[in-house]
């Protein structure tokens, strides 16, 4: 969807909507929101609308980074520690493998 063709208020609405949707534990929605509205927010001259969009985009970026950290760290712990059979690492998994640790 080409956002250059819709009005400013609609852009702000869209950005806001995507931001709130991403807040439901949907990091990729935040990522999409950040990428989509990045040029709109930062690369064009600033207006009141763009100010709002900028806020939401920054929020989306922060959220995405947070999720990246959480997921990467979980994955590292999972891959490295879980196969050692450590007790706390077992709480990372839902299904235990059969025949191997």
């Amino acid at each position: 969807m080409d956002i250059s063709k819709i009005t400013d208020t609609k852009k702000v609405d869209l950005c806001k909507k995507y931001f709130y949707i991403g807040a439901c534990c949907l990091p990729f929605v935040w990522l999409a929101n950040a990428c989509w509205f990045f040029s709109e927010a930062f690369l064009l001259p600033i207006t009141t609308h763009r100010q709002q969009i900028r806020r939401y985009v920054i929020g989306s970026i922060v959220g995405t980074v947070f999720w990246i950290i959480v997921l990467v760290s979980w994955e590292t712990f999972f891959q490295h520690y879980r196969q050692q059979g450590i007790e706390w690492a077992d709480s990372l998994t839902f299904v235990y493998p059969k025949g191997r640790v």
Partner: protein
Amino acid sequence: MSGVETPLLLIAIPDGHTTTPAVSKESQKVATGPSTTGSSNAGLEIYNAIDAQGLIVRELKAKDAKSQATKDAIAKLLELKKQYKEVTGTDHKPGNPPASQAPVAASSTSSNSALDIYNAIDAQGLLVRELKGKDAKSQATKDAIAKLLELKKQYKEVTGSDHKPGNPPASPTPAVAASPKSSNSALDIYNAIDAQGLILKKQYKEATGTDHKPGNPPASQTPAPVSSSSSNTSPLDVYNDIEKQGNIVRDLKSKDAKSQATKDAIAKLLELKKQYKELTGADHKPGNPPVASAPPISNNNDDLSKQIDAQGLIVRDLKSKDAKSQETKDAIAKLLALKKQYKESTGSDYKPAPSPAAAAVPSTPVSAPTSSIDENALLKEIEDQGAIVREAKSKDPKSQESADAINKLLALKANFKKTYVVMTRIAILVQIFIFFNFVTTINCEGFFDEVFQRINIQEGTACYRLLNGTDQFGCHGTSKNENGLLVEIKNEQGIFENIGKCFKNIYPDYDGMFWLLLPVEMIKKNTVAIIKTSNCIAGLVLYNEKVFNIDDSIEASHDSECPNRLSDFYKDPAKNINSKGAILPEGLRDIHWDLQMVFIDNSTEIEVLKKCYSLFNQPISGGTISHPYCGMSFKLSNAAAGNSDICYRRGIDAMNSLQISLDTNGQNNAPCIPLVGYNIFGLPIGLSTLANFSREPTYMVLASRMDSFGVIADVSPGEISVITSLIAMISAARSIGTNFENWSKASKKSNKYLMFSTFNGESFDYIGSSATVHLMRNSEFPLPILNITQLRNINLQQIEYVVEVQQLGSSKNKKLYAHVDKKRYSNKKEEIDGILKRIRESLVQDGYTINMSIENVTPPSSWHSFAKFDENVQNLVIAPFDETYEYGRFNSMLDKNTWNDENKNKVKKEIEAVSNSILSTAAQYVGLENATKVDEKLIDILFECMIVSRNWFDCDFFKKLNGGRYEFIGQTYSMQSKSTYIGVGGNNPLRFILHWLYIFALGSDRETLNVKDGKSCMHLSENQAVYSYDWQPNPYTGNFSCYRSSVRFNQLQSPAFDIEGYSIKNNRTYSTWTESVYTIDSIKLFIMEDSSFDYIMLILAIFVFILSIFSITRCKEDTFIIDEGEQLAESGEPL
């Protein structure tokens, strides 16, 4: 150029559309026209203009009331009405032409002539017809009709006769008629033009047979104009025409190859070409203009025949549209007239040349090849050709033309069938193939027996995973060690030479793993290292080749050099007591094997395996052998991994979490299960709470173990490890039981009691004894304290001695040893000395020597569990070994012996002697002067039943003892054969046998003679816990009676799994052994071929496939085609 006004005659050919915007514009112009003329005619003119405009408005409104054209027309009308009002001074009323003007108009009209009126009538008549045709009841129609009648009246006045159509009055000159016409009104002219147009249109329709369409000059007329022009042209002209027409055709084709225009143009081109040929006598060749030759022979007949042709086309068209219309009839009449003409001129009947219909035929074959693959195109062609055939037949069913057309149709149909039926047949073949594949993959059993030879493996005869707190041991089946080439190892040389090289010298072109078929005894000290470290062994198939003699000094203990090292009481058990027999220092059980192991008991199955090897895998006289090979597949998969801690914890988690309710309906599906077994405790004198006991009674535990293991844990006959000691204990118990009064009197007097305990799981870090100690420490032994029991529980402090006998039958030279713990010896020196003295006396009587071994480190025994928690309990182990085991097959799969009389006697004697020494020990402890002696016969019977017989219930004694109460029909190894492994399921019948034997030994039925059935016997057991009453048969007679005894059994598992918060991983106090849940597959034997075999089979399969396709397509059409009446069609039947 005189100044005479001459009329300007304008002929406008209307384009035939019925919208009136143009008309309105024109009528606008016309309407404005009249307003500029003289006022004398203005009113009438305006009136007429208003009428016309009104009609236009009505039409437009009917079409679309809101269009711009309608609005313009309405505006114009209103303007006209205004004008009219100005001019005449009255409103416009329909049907009321202005009177004042009328005479002028009328006189002007009457002064003109009757011809004028006549023409006006004609025009008006046409108008009326038109309007009627549109809508017979509209206001416009009525107006027009009114006007017509008016005109007719006028005409009658003027000429004196009625108006008759087709009879114009003679007098008026066209010029006179024309001039007032010009001044009359442009509208009249317009109407006249309209009328004229209609007349011309009708003529056109009659002439061509089609409606006049603007922009579509009639093509079918071209033969006529061409023919008319061709009679005057030269071949060169025709040639040029052909060129031009060719270009036109190319243009039209590129635009749309199938339109009517294209077809007409193509027809015209072909006509030209024919003409050219007639003229020049040669075919038209592009780029070869004709030499100017003789003038064309204009054949009148040619002309005529062309006309006939053209007319014929017209007739066909009309007929196809409507065979009964007037037009058709006219056209047919014209055609017949032409034909008559032709006949008159030439004298012969007219015969149609190849018609445009035929000309149309060549066009279709041109298009056919390009779309022969497309099914729709083929079908369409067939349809077209069918239409052509129908046409040709309708003209003349027997003509050459029809025959050609029919042949063409049949050819097309055949072509279609060929391509399409073959493809559908291939599709059917493929579907059948897929279906059979599908069916056979669902029902594998159909092919299974042809591919595999299956050998079923019982549960328990394959090596599986055992886990303890820190490690996993045993075997696990993976994809790597599942399949292998079966190799039989007959002697050690086979192992030494070949395994290192992975049998490359025998099987050079095989790269995979191997299954070794070897007897159990070939796992020895010198071979096991090679087997363990090889990376090309998938597994071992073990069988019992030779059963040893008790005198054979075979070293095949599967236990470690220091059994139960981790749970030993001594922190540093220095002695490696099993070093002589152990195959590996850590034992064979405590190893994480990479390979699998299967044990096969059945000799026929072993024969099958050996035969498979000898047929395919045995090299001829030590050389090499190539494919095909006999391969074997077996897999045992364990669910547990890591160690007991991990898997038990995960099992508990799974029990608490969602997984359980989803999968298993609330049952524990932990991947590993702690080892658990029945322990039997027999008290000769029942416990009771008697207030007159001022001191606590003390106990001497007469312990024995009832379990052992092998590298495959379930396969553990345990003859010397377990059973001989059990026989000794039971015999002693029986002796006490039969002399109950003496023993009980002495016990009660000394307040020292005996307890026979048979512990289970002792070889796995003292499961049974440690659980017992745990219960004792919690005051829950033998039962938890409940209100109904009058039981005096036994505490750990009450245990003074743990006496055990081990490995009876393996003594060398009748030498026995008594092991006593040195540290605790000093506490009770005299007592122990007294006991030892008594033992010696007893044994010497039986011809055995005994050596007292008071040592710092006593051998592994159940005492270790007691010693860990109590400082006073003393150990006494009577065994035929001193510092190392004499018996080389302690805890082994090979703990099984052949018996001849000599061996039997020897062992029986030993059992008897030791059993007597147990009685002496006990007698000394409780203070009985004369110890009783064991029943030799009982030992004989028990020996036969428990050691010599192949299965537990083969002998009569046990059969009677069972009395039909239990039927052991399980399919596990422990149910089918003698096994002493503790297990997890309580499947082992041994515990029943021991329980019954103790009841038989220690119980009596004298007190319950009045009890006549099992139910009342059970009833006696309730509400008290001192005695247990069992309805049991006498093993000698088989008669049931109610035995009262103080024998109980407890199912005990290691306290490690019972204590809250016990760290299974770190705490070594208790046993942490668990057994993994596993699934077992059966052995499958199959033939291994080399890879070229696969390719050959693939090529063969493709070849067969192609062959089958050809065999089907070679079938004739008649086998598959249903007769659709083509034979009849060919012979001329109408379709």
